[in-house]
């Protein structure tokens, strides 16, 4: 097998920056490696924002295409993931908006569309039954949140981004990140309480 610069970069665990520079130089395998490396996290973000695997896959594909087309604009000295996440997030918001306009649904009505797509990884189904139920309940309640609150909770609790990263990504102050996150968590906590 011929070791292309991209394969060499990948085999040496090179950074995104290395692959971005190779891709900009016309190395298609570097571009392919970048998309393969990041498509899983992009898909998960789309799934967590949209709540539906089919829409998430569409949004991810669209976002990755934009990512490839506009890679020239990207500052290779900056981390790649926030930029990709901003593309995915914008695409998801756009698709959600279109879907609501088409169906003339209220802005917060997602119930029919929000489908759990979780994995139960427990080796002991009895021991983790309650935990699994709670995860599903939190996931379902996430679909009931307003989009602004949902995306912050997803970025923090599902994607593990810091307040600073979320603030940069969404263009809101860190105080706003904290207050929206708090309201979202409090709503979910109330949903978990026994009725």
């Amino acid at each position: 097998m011929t070791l292309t610069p991209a394969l060499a970069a990948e085999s040496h665990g090179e950074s995104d920056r290395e692959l971005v520079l190779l891709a900009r130089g016309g190395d298609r395998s570097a571009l392919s490696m970048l998309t393969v490396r990041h498509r899983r996290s992009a898909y998960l973000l789309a799934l967590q924002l949209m709540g539906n695997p089919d829409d998430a896959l569409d949004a991810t594909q669209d976002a990755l295409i934009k990512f490839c087309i506009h890679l020239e604009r990207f500052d290779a000295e900056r981390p790649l993931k926030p930029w990709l996440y901003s593309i995915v997030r914008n695409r998801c918001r756009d698709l959600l908006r279109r879907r609501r306009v088409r169906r003339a649904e209220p802005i917060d009505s997602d119930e029919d569309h929000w489908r759990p797509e979780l994995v139960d990884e427990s080796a002991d189904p009895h021991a983790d039954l309650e935990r699994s139920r709670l995860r599903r309940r939190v996931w379902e309640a996430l679909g009931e949140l307003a989009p602004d609150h949902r995306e912050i909770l997803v970025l923090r609790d599902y994607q593990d981004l810091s307040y600073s990263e979320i603030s940069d990504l969404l263009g809101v102050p860190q105080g706003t990140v904290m207050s929206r996150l708090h309201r979202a968590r409090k709503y979910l906590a109330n949903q978990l309480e026994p009725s």
Partner: protein
Amino acid sequence: MTTTCQSGFDEVLLSGYIDGELAQGERQRIDVHVDQCAHCSSLLSSLRDVRDIARGTAFKVPSDEMWRETARTPPSRWLRQIGWIITSLFAVALTSIVTYEVVTSPEPWWVRLTVFAALSGVGLLFVSVLMDRLHDRHHDRYRRVLK
């Protein structure tokens, strides 16, 4: 759970506290308050539960095979757009020819009308799909914008 802390404490800080996003002085202030306030202590525990449950959630992801099947690269998208343009031109030409033939055909009027209605139905369905696609493209706010 009551809705707010009765002492007027800003409970929004509790989320910053469990995320480790507060300065040391604020953390110490919250430690002291939570020791004294049952509401905030309970809320802090509930918020931690929500965070831990969310973090422990695993999701199904598409297999490599599924990614390959649904792969849409820029060339494939361009080819699809060219295909749409050619198909649209063909549809316009075909519509013109069929209309001319129906109008000038020696067949009885009801035969011509039936053929025309059937073809019009197919044509309208095609146009409606085409219009949806053009509308989507036109209203894609992010077609040039990434951030």
